[in-house]
């Protein structure tokens, strides 16, 4: 009774299908660095989620390290507007 009511509410409002979820998970798997060519059919959702978590943590760590490095560099170099424009031109 209650399960039927909540199930119908889910199908009306969200319509989450397993197909849709699998599609999103394989799309995510393609983005991850450990995606091997030709092996993409045997993706398990749990493994993809696990890999995604580690990938995000890795990226967070990289950003933190880069922030530390940038703060040290900023400290030693005096970044006036002329230098900022110069650095921008280096990047462009």
């Amino acid at each position, binding site marked *: 009774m209650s399960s039927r009511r909540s199930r119908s509410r889910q199908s009306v409002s969200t319509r989450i299908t397993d197909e849709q*979820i699998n599609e999103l998970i394989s799309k*995510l798997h393609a983005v991850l660095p450990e995606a091997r060519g030709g092996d993409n059919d045997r993706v398990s959702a*749990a493994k993809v989620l696990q890999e995604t978590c580690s990938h995000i943590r890795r990226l967070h760590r990289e*950003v933190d390290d880069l922030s530390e490095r940038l703060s040290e560099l*900023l400290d030693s170099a005096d970044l006036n507007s002329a230098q900022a424009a110069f650095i921008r031109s*280096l990047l462009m």
Partner: protein
Amino acid sequence: MEDMGDWNLAGYLKGFWWEESSLRLGMTISNGDGDSAAKDGGRERKRKRRAEPSLVKWKTEGEQKTYSSKLIEALRRVRGSSAAGAASATTDHSRGRAVREAADRALAAAARGRTRWSRAILCGRTLKRRVLPRAGRPKPVGRARAAERSKPPALKTKARVLGRLVPGCRKLPLPSLLEEVSDYIAALEMQVRAMSAIAEALSAVGGAPSAALAEGPM
């Protein structure tokens, strides 16, 4: 000086921004002079009504350059404010944290409010300081039970961990969470690329302080 490069970049960004904003309004327009990224958005527009954040833009050079410029400006402000305060009080970590927050804010701004994680970053930074009292939210028991039945508990816990990693996505259902995650990862990778480039440029410039500081660029 050739302005053509700048004009093309501005035109591309403007065209992309206009197409994306009309995506949100649900208007259907024909792709006149779209680039490949805009065409991708057009194809997906025909499939879904809901605006899907395109992942391609995080890989474009134009987006990275825009982000780098904004970040450099923000870093100059960080430098200024930390120098104004008591220099002895600020440690390396607090300056690093200020840089990290500036980088995240600039990244969230680059997303132009189309994703949940970016909106959460932009309004979360001030709220996080004042620890918000968490009122006990009654969990919707019936709906949670129905949802859990379709997904095994192992997936559920992993999805919850993932939701905690991405800002603003704790109580998101799985499909929306996966979409936010893929956009967040693409954005983070661009952030890493941009910050590495800035660090390289800064170390190249700052390595010779006398030459760099004296007169500025030639």
